[in-house]
């Protein structure tokens, strides 16, 4: 029997999902559903389920939109953030959440990512970052670490990788954070905070792909890959107790930057109001 959460927020007729055994994407999709559920159930806020829109691009990650029982739109490769910008700007009361992948949002869709970050339109982007193109069978992506192998990097990857959260922060994102599959509770809370954030928010969630990335790079099975996350991805509270030496080779899981820049749709509403008064 599916859990209450799955019953309530997923399209159970279409489960089980298509992801490989051990894939981290199901956990991230659950984190998103839990974060939304917490907000809907929270009497402090006035979130209506029907006001959530899930937008995705193309790739393994982007199949999540179809499983989540909200308004959902599975768009074209790389363009999820651009579609989402249209949805949010046309109807600013909607809570628009983009589910995307490392290739979808930082290669083919990289331009839309940086410009949405700069514009500070109130979208929440959750990147399912598994360091690989999974749907097409394991090609290197913009986040594949230098030297790692992929079907299109049989001798090791020459490219240097993007850090998606830092990339977005550098482009002006008013909320940039990192999450992962192992630290599901922390990641859920980060996603909840990202949705609550008024401007553009992004959570770069490190997924695991044992089938392609893991196998190509001898990272072990899903359990081994999760263990790696447990040891090397460090939640905020622990990170700040660690010395510089202890942090070497490890990454912080948490909110990296948060600013309250003016939100785009609110600024534009002022222009509409100004024009109305002039009439």
């Amino acid at each position: 029997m599916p859990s209450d959460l799955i019953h309530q927020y997923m399209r159970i007729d279409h489960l089980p999902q298509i992801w490989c055994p051990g894939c981290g994407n199901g956990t991230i999709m659950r984190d998103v559903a839990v974060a939304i559920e917490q907000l809907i159930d929270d009497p402090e806020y006035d979130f209506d389920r029907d006001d959530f829109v899930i937008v995705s691009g193309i790739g393994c990650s982007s199949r999540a939109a179809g499983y989540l029982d909200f308004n959902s739109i599975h768009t074209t490769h790389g363009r999820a953030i651009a579609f989402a910008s249209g949805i949010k700007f046309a109807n600013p009361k909607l809570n628009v959440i983009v589910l995307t992948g490392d290739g979808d949002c930082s290669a083919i869709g990289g331009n839309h990512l940086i410009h949405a970050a700069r514009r500070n339109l109130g979208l929440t982007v959750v990147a399912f970052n598994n360091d690989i193109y999974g749907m097409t069978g394991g090609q290197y992506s913009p986040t594949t670490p230098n030297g790692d192998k992929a079907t299109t990097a049989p001798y090791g990857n020459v490219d240097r990788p993007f850090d998606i959260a830092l990339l977005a922060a550098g482009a002006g994102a008013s909320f940039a954070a990192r999450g992962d599959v192992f630290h599901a509770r922390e990641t859920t809370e980060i996603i909840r905070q990202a949705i609550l954030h008024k401007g553009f928010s992004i959570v770069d969630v490190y997924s695991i792909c044992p089938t392609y990335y893991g196998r190509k790079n001898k990272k072990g099975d899903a359990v081994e890959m999760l263990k790696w996350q447990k040891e090397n991805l460090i939640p905020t509270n622990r990170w700040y107790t660690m010395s510089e030496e202890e942090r070497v080779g490890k990454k912080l899981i948490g909110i990296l930057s948060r600013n309250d820049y003016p939100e785009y749709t609110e600024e534009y509403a002022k222009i509409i109001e100004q024009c109305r008064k002039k009439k």
Partner: protein
Amino acid sequence: MSKAVLMQGNEAAVEGAIAAGMRFFAGYPITPSTEIAEQSALRLPQVGGHFLQMEDELASIAAVLGASAAGVKAMTATSGPGFSLMQENIGYGVMAEIPCVIVDVQRAGPSTGLPTSPSQGDYMQARWGTHGDHPVIALSPSSVRETYTLIIRAFNLAEKYRTPVIFLMDEIVGHMREGVELPRESELIINHRKMSFHDGANKQCYFVPEGEYVPAMKPFGQGERYNITGLAHDSSGFPTNSTEIAGKLFTRLLDKVEKNVNDIVRIEEYAMDDAETAIVCFGGTTRAVMSAILEARAQGKKVGMFRPITVWPFPEQQLRARLPQLKNILMVEHNHGQMLLEVQRTVGGALPVDFLGRIDGTVISPADILAKLNEMEENCHAQ
């Protein structure tokens, strides 16, 4: 009729679109369409609408489709290079059945070409630019006033058939300024997409009853919570690998336009009653053709004009109906012979079809057309 105003074609496109209910525009500057973005930026907030300058044309068409899914009539405008960039998502709009209007103000040449010069070189791109078998509706205005009224029709068709509609302008019409008398609001017919699901849909957002072609479309945020995808999908909107369901879907999308061709296709005929020679033309070429016809008639030539206003689907029935009275046809267009192929296909060898085109970025003049008519007449006598 209201009072006359001086207006540019590109401005008329915006004013007509606003009259049609357009409240969202996303675009990227490109000559010779830029005035459409500028005018939209000025006018939309005045009517409570939203203008968004995107980072490129890929983003512009995506934002437009998103806005339409949120229930707002939306438009973008571009020229050849940007139109090429939009093609993938135009196909998405066809597949996901999202209404919108894409204005292409055509300019000359392949690649960057001659950005400020006239052309009609995107006629085939409008039809076949996006991949896969798909239907296309494209309309082409020939004057500033017609730009205003026809773009309203473009929105109406987009809403009625739930499909992107290409509004194929050219630099001549886009940059032409003329005095126009715009119709009053009360004279306009404005259509909206069907927003309540068909009987029996039972939350199946792409459900279409037997004998109908267009599913209803509820905007996001109104409680239906359905899925939209560019993958082949069943009537619930969820992806499917069933070739049977996919085949039915692709066929319905084509039928939606093909079975309603009489509703969609519009033409204009001029001096055709006794014509023995028909000049076929569209868009900005029309004016030179009409002056040439006046002159040719003064010289005793029985020449008329057949102008597709709906350029896709091509008005083949209407042209075929004229064939018995004709001796020959002259296709005049600012390209290397694109609509010519449709005319030849329709005529099927029954009559000689001559061609006059230009691809150097200059306009075809009435004198060019008259010279061509004389040449055709001489060839006729010589035979």
